[in-house]
C-alpha cells in the first residue's frame, strides 16, 4: 500500500466528483428535463468548453495508458496514434459543420437521428444506433481498465475501489448530464498537461537524455527480434491504414458527435478542428513514455502492459507527485466514460425507445429514459470488467473500431450525397460487418496466446497474396461495405425498389446560429 499516493489520489478524485454534482447548476438551465439540456448541455458551448470537452472525450485514460504500453511492447507501430490524430481534424473539419447545421435545423441528437431523416429508413437508423451502442460499451469498459491500472500500481487490489469510483461517476452523470464532464474536463486536462510536461522533462533527464532512451529501446527490440524503433517493410501499410481508418472512425463514434452537437455554432467547431491538435502533441509525448519505461528497466505487473505508465511514474516521481499523476489518469477516465454513456443512452432513447416503444414521448420522458439508460450502460461496463477478462474488453474495443467504421457510408457520406439507396446502405452495412468479423476472427496473436481476434493487422497472405504485408482489417471491411453499397444501390434503382424520402433540403447543411432555419430550441414544446 502506498499511503501518500492513495491519499492524494482520493482527495483529487473526490474534489472533482463534487464539481460533477455542482455542474447541474452551471450555466443555469431552466430545466434539465430534455435531451437538449441533459444530453447536449443546451447546445450552447463556446470554443473553450468545446475544446476541453472534445479533447477530454477523444484522448481518454485508456489512450494515456495503452498507447505507451503499445510502444513499450511493439515500438514504432504504436506511434500510429500521432498521424491518426493529425489527419483526423482536416479530414472532418468541413464534414462536421454540415452535421452540426442539419442537426440544428432538424433538432437531431444522434448520428442515427440524421440517418433517419436523411434516408427515411427506421431500419437503417436502428442499425446505426445499435452499432453505436455496441461499439461504445467496450470503450467505456476500457476507461475502467485505465483506472484499474492505476489502482493496481497503488496496491489497491480487489473490485471495491473500482465500483466506488464508477458509482460516483454514475450518480453525477445522472444528475448533471453533459454539463458534468464538460466542467470536469477543465480540471482533468490541466492535471494531465502538468504531469506530462513534468514527466517529459524530468524523466529523460534522470535517464541520460532522449538519445539514450531510444538507444535502450532499440537494444531491447534487437534482442527480442521483434518490434523496432522504426517500421519495417511489412507493417508500413498497416501503420498507414490503421491511422487513416481510425481517423475515419473517430467522428463516427456517437460520443464525438455529442461533443460536436453541444457547440454553439459552426465557427466554434471549425476553430476547434484547428486547435485540437494541441492534444496530439501531448499524445506523442505520452507515447514516448513507453520507451522511457524500457530505458528505466520498468516491468509490468504480471503480464499487464497497461501498468507500464503508472509503474514508471511510481518509480520516477516522489510519492505525492505520483499521486497527482495517478489522479490525472483516474479523472481522465471519468470524462470520456461520462460522455460515452450519455451518447449511448441518447441513441437508446431516441432511436429505439422513441422510434419503437413510445412514439409520443415528450422531451421530459426522453430525458428520463436517457438518464436511466446511462446508468444501465455504466453498470454493464463495470460488469464487463468484473466478470470477464479485461483482455476481452480490449478485443471488443478493437472490434468496436471496425464496426463503427461500417456506419461511414450512411452517416459520413450521407452528409454529402443522397445518391445511395437505403437498401444498398443496409446491404453494405451487413457485408462490411460480416467481412470485418471474418477478418478479425482470422487474425492470430501468438504473443497473447490468441488464435482469433488477436489484433487488427490482417496478413494479406491469407487472401492468397505472396507477401508478409499486413493491413488494417477495418479498412478492408469498409471497402467491402462501400462496394456492396454501390452495387446494391444500382440494383435497387434498376428494380425500381422504393426508396425512403429525404427529409432534408440542401440549404439545411449550411444553416448557422441566428439563421432563420435554425429554430430556437424549445425545451418544453412537445416533439412533432
Amino acid at each position, binding site marked *: 500500500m502506498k499511503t501518500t499516493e492513495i491519499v492524494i489520489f482520493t482527495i483529487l478524485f473526490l474534489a472533482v466528483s463534487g464539481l460533477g454534482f455542482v455542474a447541474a447548476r452551471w450555466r443555469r438551465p431552466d430545466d434539465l428535463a430534455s435531451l437538449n439540456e441533459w444530453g447536449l448541455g443546451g447546445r450552447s458551448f463556446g470554443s473553450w468548453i468545446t475544446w476541453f470537452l472534445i479533447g477530454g472525450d477523444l484522448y481518454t485514460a485508456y489512450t494515456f495508458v495503452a498507447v505507451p504500453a503499445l510502444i513499450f511492447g511493439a515500438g*514504432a507501430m504504436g*506511434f500510429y496514434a*500521432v*498521424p491518426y490524430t*493529425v*489527419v483526423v*481534424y*482536416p*479530414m472532418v*473539419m*468541413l464534414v462536421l*459543420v*454540415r452535421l452540426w447545421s442539419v442537426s440544428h435545423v432538424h433538432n437531431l441528437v444522434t448520428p442515427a437521428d440524421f440517418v433517419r431523416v436523411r434516408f427515411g429508413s427506421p431500419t437503417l437508423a436502428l442499425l446505426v444506433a445499435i452499432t453505436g451502442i455496441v461499439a461504445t460499451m467496450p470503450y467505456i469498459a476500457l476507461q475502467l481498465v485505465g483506472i484499474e491500472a492505476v489502482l493496481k500500481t497503488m496496491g489497491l487490489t480487489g473490485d471495491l475501489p473500482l465500483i466506488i469510483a464508477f458509482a460516483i461517476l454514475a450518480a453525477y452523470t445522472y444528475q448533471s448530464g453533459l454539463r458534468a464532464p464538460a466542467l470536469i474536463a477543465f480540471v482533468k486536462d490541466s492535471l494531465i498537461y502538468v504531469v506530462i510536461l513534468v514527466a517529459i522533462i524530468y524523466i529523460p533527464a534522470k535517464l541520460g*537524455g*532522449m*538519445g*539514450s*532512451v*531510444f538507444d535502450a529501446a532499440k537494444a531491447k527490440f534487437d534482442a527480442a527480434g521483434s518490434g523496432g*524503433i*522504426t*517500421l519495417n517493410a511489412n507493417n*508500413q501499410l498497416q*501503420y*498507414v491504414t490503421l*491511422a*487513416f481508418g481510425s481517423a475515419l472512425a473517430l467522428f463516427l463514434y456517437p460520443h464525438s458527435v455529442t461533443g460536436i452537437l453541444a457547440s454553439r455554432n*459552426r*465557427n466554434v467547431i*471549425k*476553430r476547434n*478542428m*484547428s*486547435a485540437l*491538435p*494541441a492534444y*496530439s*502533441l501531448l499524445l*506523442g509525448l505520452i507515447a*514516448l513514455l513507453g520507451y522511457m519505461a524500457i530505458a528505466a528497466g520498468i516491468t509490468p505487473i504480471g503480464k499487464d502492459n497497461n501498468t507500464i505508465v503508472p509503474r514508471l511514474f511510481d518509480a520516477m516521481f516522489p510519492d505525492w507527485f505520483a499521486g497527482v499523476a495517478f489522479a490525472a489518469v483516474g479523472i481522465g477516465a471519468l470524462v470520456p466514460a461520462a460522455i460515452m454513456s450519455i451518447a449511448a443512452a441518447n441513441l437508446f432513447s431516441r432511436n429505439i425507445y422513441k422510434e419503437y416503444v413510445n412514439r409520443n414521448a415528450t422531451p421530459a420522458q426522453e430525458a428520463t429514459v436517457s438518464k436511466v439508460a446511462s446508468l444501465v450502460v455504466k453498470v454493464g461496463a463495470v460488469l464487463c470488467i468484473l466478470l470477464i477478462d479485461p483482455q476481452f474488453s480490449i478485443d471488443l474495443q478493437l472490434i468496436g473500431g471496425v464496426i463503427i467504421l461500417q456506419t461511414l457510408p450512411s452517416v459520413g457520406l450521407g452528409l454529402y450525397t443522397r445518391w445511395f439507396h437505403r437498401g444498398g446502405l443496409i446491404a453494405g452495412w451487413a457485408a462490411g460487418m460480416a467481412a470485418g468479423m471474418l477478418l478479425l476472427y482470422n487474425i492470430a496473436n501468438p504473443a497473447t496466446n490468441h488464435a482469433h481476434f488477436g489484433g487488427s493487422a490482417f496478413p494479406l497472405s491469407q487472401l492468397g497474396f505472396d507477401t508478409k504485408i499486413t493491413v488494417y482489417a477495418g479498412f478492408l471491411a469498409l471497402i467491402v461495405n462501400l462496394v456492396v453499397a454501390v452495387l446494391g444501390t444500382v440494383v435497387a434503382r434498376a428494380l425500381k425498389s422504393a426508396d425512403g424520402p429525404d427529409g432534408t*433540403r*440542401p*440549404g439545411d*447543411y*449550411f444553416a*448557422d446560429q*441566428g*439563421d*432563420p*432555419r435554425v429554430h430556437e430550441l424549445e425545451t418544453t414544446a412537445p416533439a412533432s
Partner: protein
Amino acid sequence: MTTPRDDRGRSPDYSPLNWLLLLPIVIPLLPPLFNAVEPRLFGIPLFYWLQLAFIILGVTTTTLVYRATRRNR
C-alpha cells in the same frame, strides 16, 4: 433582415483554400518521408520528431482555412 442563402448553385462552404486541407491528410500517411532514424533531433529519431512536426502542418493549414472561411456576423 436576413435573407436565406440560396439552396442551389455553389455551396456556401466552398473555398479554393479547402484544397489545402489535403496536405495534412496526405503527407502524414507517407511512411517513406519519415521512416528513418537519422537525422536525429535532440537525440530523437526522425520517425518521431518529424511526425510530431506534422502536427504543426495540420494546425497551420486548418487555422488558415478556418480564418478564410469564418462567417462574420
